[in-house]
C-alpha cells in the first residue's frame, strides 16, 4: 500500500522551507498581488468521489446534500444546479434573519446564470455546489469587508485564487460569510462589540458563541445555508468555529492553499482552511484548492498534492480500520479538561479509537524541551505582522479597528531584537515538534492549535459528541483537534474517515430557529 505523504517528506526539507518563508517576510514588498490568471488545476483524484448510498427521498431537503452527494446526484440527473441554488437561497431568505451568517450575497438571477452556464467540457467536480467563503476572500462580484470598518465598501477587482479555483471547478459562491473583526473573535456589527452571527445550534440565543473568526462560514454550513465553505486560520479561526458547530475542517500545511487575494494578518501564519460537514467534503475541497499559484510563492516547490479524496474514503474490512498504521498521542492534560462531560466524551473517543484497526494509542506524549516558553507570549506570538500591513489605516483613524486595535498597534512597540528572537524561537519549536513530538506519534490530540498554526503543520477538527450548554440548556456539539507533521493531511483524513464510518455525530443537524 502506498504510504501517506507525511512519511515520505524530508523533515529537514520542510524546516528549510519554513526558514525561507521567515526570511522572505522581510521582502514581502516583492509579492505585490497580480490579477489571477485562473486556477484550472483540478486533480484526477476528484473523479474518485464515491457514489452516494442515499436516495433523493432519504436526503429530504436539498440543502441536506453534502458535496459528495451533490456530485453523485448531479451525475445521475436526480437534481439540477438550479434546483440546488433555489433551495439554498430559499433557506437563507427564510432563516438568515436569525443566524446572520452572511455579510453579502449575489442576486438569485446571477446565481442561476452561473449555475446554468456551460463549460468547455472539462470536469467540474463542484458543479452546483453552494459555498460560503469568509468575507476576507476577494470577490469581484461582492464586497470584501473583512468584518471591519477598515475595509468597509471595498470592492476587489479580482477573485482570490481560492475563490477562482472554486468557480473554475463549477462551485457557486452563495454569499460572503460574516467574520470576526479583521479575523479576530466572533462576528460583530462593524466597529462595535455587538455580536451578530449566532451559533447554528443555538439560533435563538445570541450569547452562545459561534466562535471565530470564521463564524459566518461555520454557521452557514451547520445551518444548511451552504454545503461547505472556506475559512482562514492564523490562530485557531477554522477549527474554533468548526468545533463549536459540529463541523469537520482542515487547516492544511502552510503553503498548501494560496493566500493570494486574502486580506492578510500574518505573512507567516495565515492559512486557508476548508470547512465542511464531513471528512470527505473537506478532502474534496482541499483537492480542488491544493495547487501551486503563480501569485503566491509560498505555494511553490511543494510536493504534489496527493490523493486526499482517496484517503478520506472509509476502508473496507472488519471495524473499518484506519488506512495506515497510525500511532495516536495525547497532549498532557487533554483527557482531563476540567469539565466532567467533556472528559467522559474524550475517554469514550479514545476507547473507540483504540478499537479501530491500525490505531496504536501511545498515551500522553512528553512535550518537547522549553515547550511553554516557545509557545507562549512573547516568543510564540506575531506582534509585528499585522502592524506591517495596516499602517495606512492606523494613521487614518485608529477607531476603524474597534476592539482589535491593540493587536494592530503592538508591532510598533516590538523591538527588532524581539522580532528576531520570535523567528528563531519559531524555528526551534518547529524543529522540536518534528524531532521530539512526532517521534512519539503520527497524530496528536491537542486542545489548542496555536503551536501548529505558528509552525505551519496540519490540524483537523471533527465532532465527537454532544453536551448540554449550561447557559441555554441546549444540546451543542463538541469536537477534537488532531494535528500531524507537515503534509500529514492524508493521515488526518484517514483517521477521521475511519471514525466517521462508525459514528453519526457529523450527520446530526441543528433545529431550525423559532420565530
Amino acid at each position: 500500500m502506498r504510504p501517506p505523504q507525511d512519511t515520505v517528506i524530508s523533515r529537514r526539507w520542510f524546516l528549510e522551507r519554513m526558514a525561507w518563508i521567515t526570511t522572505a517576510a522581510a521582502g514581502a514588498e516583492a509579492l505585490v498581488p497580480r490579477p489571477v490568471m485562473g486556477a484550472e488545476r483540478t486533480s484526477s483524484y476528484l473523479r474518485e468521489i464515491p457514489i452516494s448510498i442515499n436516495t433523493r427521498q432519504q436526503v429530504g431537503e436539498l440543502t441536506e446534500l453534502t458535496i459528495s452527494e451533490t456530485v453523485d446526484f448531479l451525475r445521475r440527473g436526480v437534481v439540477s444546479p438550479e434546483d440546488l441554488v433555489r433551495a439554498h437561497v430559499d433557506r437563507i431568505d427564510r432563516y438568515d434573519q436569525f443566524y446572520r451568517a452572511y455579510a453579502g450575497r449575489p442576486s438569485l438571477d446571477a446565481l442561476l446564470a452561473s449555475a446554468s452556464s456551460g463549460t468547455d467540457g472539462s470536469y467540474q467536480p463542484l458543479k452546483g455546489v453552494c459555498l460560503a467563503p469568509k468575507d476576507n476572500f476577494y470577490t469581484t462580484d461582492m464586497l470584501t469587508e473583512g468584518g471591519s470598518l477598515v475595509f468597509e465598501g471595498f470592492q476587489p477587482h479580482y477573485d482570490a485564487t481560492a475563490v477562482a479555483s472554486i468557480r473554475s471547478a463549477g462551485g457557486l459562491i452563495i454569499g460572503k460569510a460574516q467574520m470576526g473583526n479583521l479575523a479576530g473573535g466572533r462576528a460583530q456589527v462593524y466597529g462595535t462589540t455587538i455580536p451578530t452571527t449566532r451559533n447554528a445550534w443555538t439560533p435563538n440565543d445570541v450569547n452562545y458563541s459561534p466562535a471565530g473568526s470564521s463564524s459566518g462560514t461555520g454557521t452557514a454550513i451547520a445551518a444548511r445555508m451552504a454545503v461547505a465553505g472556506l475559512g482562514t486560520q492564523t490562530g485557531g479561526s477554522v477549527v474554533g468555529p468548526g468545533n463549536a458547530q459540529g463541523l469537520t475542517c482542515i487547516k492544511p500545511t502552510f503553503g498548501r492553499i494560496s493566500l493570494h487575494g486574502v486580506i492578510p494578518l500574518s505573512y507567516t501564519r495565515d492559512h486557508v482552511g476548508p470547512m465542511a460537514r464531513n471528512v470527505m467534503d473537506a478532502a474534496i475541497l482541499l483537492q480542488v484548492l491544493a495547487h501551486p499559484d503563480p501569485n503566491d510563492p509560498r505555494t511553490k516547490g511543494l510536493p504534489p498534492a496527493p490523493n486526499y479524496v482517496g484517503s478520506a474514503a472509509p476502508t473496507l474490512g472488519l471495524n473499518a480500520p484506519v488506512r495506515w498504521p497510525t500511532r495516536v498521542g495525547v497532549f498532557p492534560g487533554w483527557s482531563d479538561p476540567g469539565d466532567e462531560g467533556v472528559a467522559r466524551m474524550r475517554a469514550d473517543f479514545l476507547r473507540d479509537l483504540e478499537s479501530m484497526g491500525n490505531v496504536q494509542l501511545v498515551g500522553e506524549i512528553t512535550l518537547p524541551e522549553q515547550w511553554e516558553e516557545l509557545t507562549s507570549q512573547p516568543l510564540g506570538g506575531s506582534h509585528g505582522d499585522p502592524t506591517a500591513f495596516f499602517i495606512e489605516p492606523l494613521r487614518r483613524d485608529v477607531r476603524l479597528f474597534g476592539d482589535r486595535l491593540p493587536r494592530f498597534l503592538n508591532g510598533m512597540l516590538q523591538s527588532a531584537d524581539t522580532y528576531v528572537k520570535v523567528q528563531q524561537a519559531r524555528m526551534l519549536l518547529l524543529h522540536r515538534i518534528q524531532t521530539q513530538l512526532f517521534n512519539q506519534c503520527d497524530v496528536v490530540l491537542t486542545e489548542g492549535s496555536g503551536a501548529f498554526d505558528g509552525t505551519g503543520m496540519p490540524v483537523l477538527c471533527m465532532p465527537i459528541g454532544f453536551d448540554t450548554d449550561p447557559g441555554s440548556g441546549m444540546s451543542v456539539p463538541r469536537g477534537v483537534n488532531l494535528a500531524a507533521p507537515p503534509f500529514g493531511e492524508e493521515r488526518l483524513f484517514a483517521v477521521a474517515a475511519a471514525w466517521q464510518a462508525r459514528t453519526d455525530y457529523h450527520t446530526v443537524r441543528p433545529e431550525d430557529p423559532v420565530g
Partner: protein
Amino acid sequence: MKEKTIHSPSDEELNVYIRTRYQLLGVDISVLPDSDPDAPMDQERLLENGRSILRQEVVAADFDIDPQFNLPVPHPAPFVAWTEEVEK
C-alpha cells in the same frame, strides 16, 4: 566603577513612551475616549495592553538561544517561484 542603578519603568513612564512612539509613526490615539468600558476601545485599555507588550520585551531579551542556531539555508530552492521556471 559606578554601581548599576537601572530601575524598572513605572506605568506613567511607559505611557509617555507608548504615546511618543505612536506619535512618531503618525498614529493619533487621542481620538479614542480616555476611559469608557462601553466603547470598543479606549486609551486606558490601549495603554495597559501596550505596557504589557513592552514588559514582555524583557522576557524575549532574556531568552537564551544558541548563537550558533542558524536558520538552515535561508535561500533554498523555492527561489524559482520568482524566476518564472515552469512548474513541473
